[in-house]
């Protein structure tokens, strides 16, 4: 399913001006940069054009006045142009850079913002890597195309106009002849720019395959060696590296043809100017300076045309990125507060601001904040395109109860838990909290009442202390340590080199799974949730940590509604009710003893798990 997103962005044949205007609008508030940028672009174009004119006047003046010619005015003209040009260059780099960076910063912030609210179903179909690319290179690329594209388009059009105007004013007949090279120049430029862009993309495609091959060859070294695949691997690699070589050579060939070709066409213009202009000069109808100016201008046409073609091509190439980012920004979260809920929250907010209501015990919508029961009422669920995962599922859980969910993977245990958390919503039936459909309560309130511990607990890069405090940001150090103590994490944390200030590494990778789990217990406990949800780790944990975890769990379960996807016998036994979930249904339900006596699914599961745990404990204990 991810493959659809990994394709290289396709080249858009048609420029979607609406999309680009929408993107450009996001830069409009940067007037303090846009205005100077436009002025600089025009000024530079004018200077570029003025150069030829000053040269022309200088030559004509010198030829007319001979040795007595005063060079001061020309010198002044040249100096003015030089200074304007240099200031212009400074301003355009600075302003275009500012627009590009502010814009990418803003688009990125808006996208990040939106991602914080989007439902998990959105994440299910999009790999993290894909999203990261949207937020990093796509944002940068779009902002760059807009800022520098704006500059080049303003500059290019102005310069083009100035050259054409200069030629026509100096001698309109000759001007028209010289301008006749513009259409072929423009067409060729557009054609080649597109080809070059496409072959560059081809190179990138092969390059990422090569990177993947290198990765594979290192990570799969044992497999390669045991299968004696070295020569075969190299042969396959050579196919890709040769393809990349050919693409690179093609790309270079296109550039190598493009520039000489347009230069030759440009020289055709200059040649025409020299020939027809030379005749005019010889007959005294045109000054030598004007002739030189004509030749210079004719050779200059290429530059603005090249830039314009380049920017249009870049926009076509970046259009897919633009569509994706704008698409992300305009995606409305599928799970969010209903208008009715939002209204209730707003009303209660007003009431509170007026000092009319007592805060204690009320949630943001003015309803009781306590959560004593969770009820599934005929709940059905399916992921967007998938088969039915849950069907007509009913269950009521009271505060203080611990529900252990067991059963084969893919049976619907995780779905059930995600539904409790409202990461997904039922596609049929409803889930009620204290008798009210949870879609009628604020999402933020419900989720802030949850304590969640995932199978592979995710910790954020930072210290142990910061990670525990994530449960309640205002907690004091003493409270953080108290929470750690209550779940039995304090001991191992103190034993770490820097105690609570030890770094946990990316995703927590410097700690063992068991340690991560203990920290995530402390984090959950600190949040003091009314509903506790856990997906127990399956990987082996040493006996000592296992005991610590069990004691920690006892503390957490007390007085809460708990759902545990359980793998360990000790956890299962601790539950007040055990549900064997298979194919979206409750196969068996009851306490540990009841289910054992029944000698059904649970009995089978339990015995095989029991053997496995014993075996691994025997093996871990040594011979």
């Amino acid at each position: 399913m991810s493959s659809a997103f990994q394709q290289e962005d396709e080249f858009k044949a048609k420029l979607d001006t609406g999309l680009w205007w929408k993107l450009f609008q996001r830069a409009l508030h940067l007037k303090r940069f846009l205005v100077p940028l436009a002025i600089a672009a025009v000024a530079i174009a004018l200077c570029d054009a003025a150069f030829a004119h000053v040269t022309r006047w200088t030559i004509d003046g010198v030829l007319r006045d001979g040795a007595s010619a005063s060079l001061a005015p020309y010198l002044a003209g040249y100096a003015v142009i030089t200074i304007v040009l240099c200031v212009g260059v400074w301003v355009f780099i600075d302003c275009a850079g500012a627009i590009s960076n502010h814009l990418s910063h803003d688009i990125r912030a808006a996208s990040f913002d939106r991602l914080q609210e989007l439902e998990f179903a959105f994440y299910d179909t999009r790999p993290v890597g894909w999203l990261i690319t949207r937020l990093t290179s796509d944002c940068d690329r779009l902002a760059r195309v807009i800022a520098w594209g704006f500059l080049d388009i303003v500059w290019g059009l102005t310069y083009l106009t100035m050259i054409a105007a200069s030629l026509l004013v100096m001698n309109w007949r000759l001007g028209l002849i010289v301008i006749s090279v513009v259409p072929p120049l423009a067409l060729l430029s557009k054609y080649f720019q597109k080809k070059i862009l496409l072959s560059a993309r081809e190179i990138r495609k092969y390059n990422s395959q090569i990177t993947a091959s290198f990765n594979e060859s290192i990570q799969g070294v044992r497999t390669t060696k045991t299968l004696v695949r070295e020569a075969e691997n190299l042969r396959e690699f050579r196919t890709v590296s040769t393809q990349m070589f050919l693409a690179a050579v093609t790309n270079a060939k296109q550039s190598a043809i493009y520039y000489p070709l347009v230069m030759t066409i440009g020289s055709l213009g200059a040649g025409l100017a020299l020939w027809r202009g030379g005749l005019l000069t010889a007959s005294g109808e045109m000054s030598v300076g004007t002739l030189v100016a004509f030749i210079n201008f004719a050779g200059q046409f290429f530059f603005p045309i090249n830039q314009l073609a380049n920017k249009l091509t870049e926009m076509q190439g970046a259009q897919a990125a633009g569509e994706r980012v704008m698409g992300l920004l305009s995606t409305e979260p599928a799970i969010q507060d209903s208008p009715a809920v939002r209204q209730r929250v707003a009303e209660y907010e007003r009431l509170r601001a007026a000092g009319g209501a007592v805060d204690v015990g009320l949630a943001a919508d003015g309803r009781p904040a306590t959560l004593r029961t969770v009820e599934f009422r005929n709940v059905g669920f399916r992921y967007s395109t998938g088969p039915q995962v849950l069907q007509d599922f009913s269950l009521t859980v009271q505060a203080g109860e611990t529900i252990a969910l067991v059963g084969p993977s893919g049976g619907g245990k995780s779905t059930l838990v995600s539904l409790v958390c409202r990461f997904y919503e039922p596609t049929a039936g409803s889930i009620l909290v204290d008798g009210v459909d949870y879609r009628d309560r604020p999402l933020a309130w419900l989720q802030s009442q949850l304590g969640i511990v995932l199978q592979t607990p995710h910790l954020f890069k930072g210290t142990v202390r910061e990670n525990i405090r994530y449960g309640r940001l205002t907690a004091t150090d003493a409270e953080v340590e108290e929470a750690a103590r209550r779940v039995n994490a304090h001991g191992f944390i103190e034993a770490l080199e820097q105690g609570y200030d030890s770094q946990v590494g990316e995703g927590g990778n410097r700690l063992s799974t068991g340690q991560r789990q203990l920290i995530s217990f402390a984090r959950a406990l600190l949040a003091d949730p009314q509903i506790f949800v856990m997906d127990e780790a399956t990987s082996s944990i040493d006996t000592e940590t296992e005991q610590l975890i069990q004691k920690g769990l006892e503390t957490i379960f007390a007085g809460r509604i708990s759902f545990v996807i359980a793998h360990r016998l000790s956890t299962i036994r601790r539950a007040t009710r055990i549900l064997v979930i298979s194919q979206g249904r409750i196969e068996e339900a009851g306490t540990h003893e009841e289910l054992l006596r029944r000698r059904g699914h649970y009995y089978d599961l339990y015995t095989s798990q029991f053997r496995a745990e014993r075996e691994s404990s025997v093996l871990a204990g040594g011979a």
Partner: protein
Amino acid sequence: MSNPFTVLWNLMQGQRLRYGAALLCLVLATAANYLVPLVGAATIDHAIGNRPVAEASPLVAALLHAVGGAARLGEQLWLAPVLMVLLTAAGGACSYLKGRYTSLASDGIARRLKDDLYDHLNHLPARTLDRSDTGDLVQRCTSDVETTRQFLAVQVMEIGNALILAATALPLLLLLSPPMTLVAFALIPPLVIYGYVYFRKVRHVFKAVDEAEGALTSVIQENLTGIRVVRAFARQDFERTKFAGPNATFRDRNLRLLRLMSWYWSVSDLVALSQLGLVLLVGASWVGQGKLTVGVLFAFLAFLGIMLWPVRQMGRILTDLGKTSVAVGRIQEILGEQREADPVGAPPPPSGPLRGSIVVQNLHFAHARRPAAAASASRAPASAVAPTSADPGAANTEPAVDQPDALNGISFEVTPGETLAVLGPSGGGKSTLMHLLLRLYDYERGSIRLDGRELSSLPRSWVRGQFGTVMQEPFLFSKSLRDNIRLGRGDAPDREIEEAARAACIDDTIRTFEQGYETLIGERGITLSGGQRQRIAIARAILRNPPVLILDDALSAVDGETETLILDALKRRRGHSTTLVIAHRLSTLAHADRVIVLDHGRIIQMGTHEQLAASPGLYRRLWEIQTSVEADFQRELQTQ
């Protein structure tokens, strides 16, 4: 570090002729580019302006002579533009050839480097690779090669171009007018020095931007991978604040860099334009005084137009040279690593099919001595920024064996066709033993004999060819399922592949995928579960049909029922295959003829089921679990 020019020269080996041709074309293109303005100058001065040819500089005079004199040019003025266009086209053709040769040469070198690196990595000992950081190695093989390629494609020619321009322009301009030449070159050295000093100075700003980008990416990645935790604690606002900092830092550092760049380019523009202005001013006044012709002035201005751009780049190129020689150094560190070697002068391996007897005697293996691996020891500054993106292939990597367990003198025999199970706690030496058999590690003392031949005297590839290996976390390549199974035997027909899949109990699963056997695995395809991966690897091994089969905890993620099916299928098929099984489950051990128990690098028990079940030890304890489960239940139910 050796001289960067020497390093580059060595790299160019095999492509030097092409570079020579490219430079020749460049010279010709440059010459044509020179002549174009000269044509204009001669035409304006002598054909249109009627200035006597005697006053012309020798070069212009020669040019006029070539077209049949000034008078003819004046009469047939169309000659001048035709000449101009022809010269530009000829120059263009040369510049095209230059581009072509350069690309063939530089992309060819890059391809050779990549091929060499790839081949070398495939032949490095597994332990060398275990010790190095994959991200760093891949970076060397890709971005360092790219840095080198760019230098070879662009900068080398720019240097050549600048040198040729300087070498040819100087005498030509001196021919036209020595004093003017002095004026025309007055500001060039400061321009080069300014660029060089500038780019050296801003290097740390570039690095700061890279770091900020890395920090930003890692914050985004942290947030997105932990999005469930973020939601679980409703911490969206906290995350927004956490993200705002790096986002702003990245922007601000970029702005700082751009501010510096705007100073660089505007000042260098000022210097370059001043140079042009100086020539224009001095030249015009000399023209006024009759010391210089307009044509020569025109030529000087045109020359400067050609030359100022490459000169402005020079400072930057010189700084890039430093960067490139670091990159080449990092590449050569990999190529300098020792490859797996085969014994020299050993007799050729037996040609017939192997019987499959293995005799291990007094086998020793010590812990790694941890020699400093070049590939990870000296990290150049360029790699100091650790790769921040998550490793996409993390779900499909072989477990890195950091520190193999020691073996302290073990001896056993496996007769052809026998199934031997190896049991023992982790860290006991089971995996090391398998690695030694496969010659992934080299044993130091003792002996391993395969059909009576000492393993260390045989070519590695031959030895490995006799084994079929399935590991606990098998590595699958990002190919189709069919091609992954086919890795076992390259010439196997589809029918046999599917048979092997059926025997490995994976055929049904494969058929549930939309694209069946053509389904791609990995980043661009689907993710398989651990059990599915193990079964694909089993199918691969079945297809290989080797004399010796090694199953290294290869069915740990497969449920018991399926495991039995697969093991039975293996038993039926193998017939003559000798099989070694590393197991953690009693159910797996049940299929073995004999069991050895390995702990702390020693064999502590060896025998058949009956023998081991009868004597106290690890095996019996495992065995007792089976019978004790029921009894335990009864006890538990009674006490509650």
